[in-house]
Every structure is written in structure tokens, then in C-alpha cells.
């Protein structure tokens, strides 16, 4: 692509089938305790 650089290729839509195991960290247990943030959490599965 000449005009566009894409930073990531993994689509959220792909996580619909495999996701939802619930093993990842509860967001408020991380650092925040006041501000709900999930974008910075990591998935426990590598695929």
C-alpha cells in the first residue's frame, strides 16, 4: 500500500469464536482501582 500503513492485522472479530475463557486479569485488579480500562490487558492465550 502506498498511502496506508496498517499497525496491526489481528481482527477483534476473530476473537468471537475462541474468546471468553475468562482467565485474564480483572481490570480493576491491575493498577487502576478507579478507571475501567481493558485495552491494555493481555489475553492469556497466545493464539
Amino acid at each position, binding site marked *: 500500500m502506498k*498511502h496506508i*500503513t496498517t499497525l496491526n492485522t489481528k*481482527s477483534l472479530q476473530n476473537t468471537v469464536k475462541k474468546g471468553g475463557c475468562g*482467565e485474564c486479569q480483572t481490570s480493576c485488579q*491491575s493498577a487502576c482501582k*478507579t478507571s475501567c480500562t481493558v485495552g491494555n*490487558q*493481555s489475553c492469556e492465550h497466545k493464539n
Partner: protein
Amino acid sequence: MIHQYKSNGYNMVLDINSGAVHVVDDLVYDVLACMQEGTEGADDVCQKLQDRYQESEIKEALEECKDLKQQGMLFTEDIYEHAIDVFAERPTVVKALCLHIAHDCNLACKYCFAEEGEYHGRRALMSYEVGKKALDFLIANSGNRRNLEVDFFGGEPLMNWQVVKDLVIYGREQEKLHDKNFRFTLTTNGVLLNDEIMEFCNKEMGNVVLSLDGRKEVHDFMRPFRNGKGSYDLVVPKFQKFASSRNQDKYYVRGTFTHYNLDFAADVLHFADLGFKQISVEPVVAPPEADYAIREEDLPIIFEQYDILAKEMIKREKEGRGFNFFHFMIDLTGGPCVYKRLSGCGSGTEYLAVTPWGDFYPCHQFVGNEEFLLGNVEEGVKRPELTKEFKQCNVYAKKECKECFARFYCSGGCAANSFNFHHKINAVYEIGCKMQQKRIECALMIKAALAGNQETQA
């Protein structure tokens, strides 16, 4: 739906529903704005943009956009609303507890939602027996979840340190018997921190949150001892030692900014200059009438501070002296699944707070508000209707979230914030939303800057 914005010379485009992030040139930026308005035909787009670009260029750019659209990386549809409904119907399991190990504190922070540790109630320390029952409850109600989280919180948990240690030992025994994995964390103001505590935490605690607000004058103003003396000089050297003993990982120095230090970027950089690598500085949550509360008119200053911070972080990273800022962390490749992103923080369902005497509340922010008392360690959760209400707190329950580009990054915001401002748990806290949106814009821009996309700079 896409979200496009310009930041620090980068033209950023977020495809909201796929999560794809693109850095584009000015031409594509303008073409995408046309497409967003519904103009997609080559002739129509050319007509709209002919004053600025050549027709052949416009057509080429449009083709690139259409290619990405076809690949599901631009203008993708929201296919999740039904999926999340089905997901929310699953049986409730509890996977995380915030143990209020001490409703007492040795500081008198002015913004404390726990009212100097007392949470609108009496001073109390959690007994080992109550703590054990809480861990037993967690194991018994965790279904097939293996990773169980327990945060030792307060007040100040080090005021009840022996019980913390005993509960960790108990948890380690129990996890083997039940095939679970406890992840313990601790939040502390550092006043009682010593070598023995650091050593224990380094062995047993997956994360520690070290409360520090920033520059000495900022910290001491909001976080004094009860006699009015500041606590900065006592805790900073201990936190530095602690962070270093954890190899600058698995901890956060965590500060709160208020109306009184809107120039909080200086506080974040102060932490970095003190040598800390894991930093979180977050806006205070306060009733609107509090003198230190963040107000709507503070937002332009706050946004500017996030911009200043983002640029400085890029600079330091390139110089090899970067650091993490919790609110700018975003995982574009291994982030959470869409269920996690849409289903909220889990308060009142999979996440509960436990008081020193064993009562359950939806989260630490609700502790002390009897209206939200859910049950206790003896009898379990006794308010299914309230649990259900919390369970339904996902982004599709709020019309503002449905239209917000940030919905996959904040999961619909904090129920306690919503309650504080609107007296219901499924509303939105607008000031918080605007700050969250700004932080996501900065976080994505940082990714662009560090991906070496200089050629796309305007």
C-alpha cells in the same frame, strides 16, 4: 464506522469494530472522511476532493481503502451485540476478590474514597478466619476458572501484615488441593514497608501498587500523615528500593491527579526521573462538589498534558530510557478478546470486595453503601437481582457507548463512577469518557510513532 484524528503529525484511523489501526497520508485521510459520510463512488469522491488532489491519485487512494474494507479492516460491522447477550447468560463465577484487610490507615489523604480507611464505618482489621472464609468462597464459586485473583487492599493493608502473610500461605496450600492458581497483589502507601515485607512480596505477589502522587509538593499536599506532615520523604526511597528489587517489573507507582495538579505530566515525568519504569497516574474520582474534583473546564488542560506526556514518552523511548504509562498501554496484537472488551469490569459478578467483617460489595468503591451489600462470607451472595443488574452493565446497555469509538478499550466505564454522578450503575461519567477517549488517541499515536512511520508525518 471508523474514528479518524490527527495527532502529533500523524493521520490516525481506527476501524472501530475490527480494531485495525492505520496511519494514512492526507489524501487517504480525506477519502476516508468521504466514505464515512457515505460517498464511495469514484466520480463522487473525485468531485469532492478535486480542488486538493489529482484525479488519478484520488482513485488510487480509494482503491486502497476499498481493498482494506474488503479485507475487513475498514468500515467493518458490529457483529458483537448478540454474542455478548449470549455470553452474559452464562452462569456467574467469582474469580477475583478485593480483600479489605484493614479499614484503617496511617495517612489522611484528602481525596480518599475510603475516608481515611474507615469507609463510612468503623476502623477494623480483617481476621485470619474471615480471610480464610473469603478464599474458600472464592475457590468454591470459581467454577472452572483456574486463575484466581486476590488483592490485599485497605485502608492500608500493611497495618494487618501478619494476616496478609497467613492468607497467602493458606491460599498456596489450597490452590494445590483444588487445582487453582492464586495471583496475589497488594496496594500500599509504603509507610510501613520494610525489607521483610519486600522480600515476601517479591516471592508471592504478582503485582504491587505503590501509592505515590508525584512531585514532593503535590504528594505531600494530598497525602499527609494525620499530623499534617507530608509522607513523600519517607516512602520514596522505600518505593525506589522495592521497584529495583522487583527488577523494575510487576509493580506500579500509582498516583492520583486532581484539580490541584492538572499539570500531572510533570508528576509522571518526575516518577520516570526517580527511576520508576512502571507508572500510573490517574484522575481522581470525586463528587462534583469536592474542591479537588476534575471539572469539565479542566479538560483542555488535561488533554494538553496527555499530549505533552505522549510526545515525551516517544522521545525517551527512542533515546533508550522509555517507561510504561498504564493508561497509554495498549496491546494491538495480543489484547483481550471481544467478550472481555465488552462485558465490563466484572464488579458485582466475577469481582467482589470483602470488608474486614466479611461482607461482600460489588467492588471497593461501593463498600460502605448498604444499598449495595451483596452478602457475606458465611452465606455467600444473597442478592441475585443486584448481581443481574451488574451483569448487564456492558457497553450495549448504554447508548453513549454504542456510538463511542473507545468502547472496545474501556468496556463501558466504571459502575461506581456512574453511580456517583448519576445515581445509577449503567450510566456514563462524561468527563471520564472524554479523558479515556483522549488517552486511547494518544496510545495509538505512540504506537504509530514507534512503528517508524515517519514517512507518513504531515
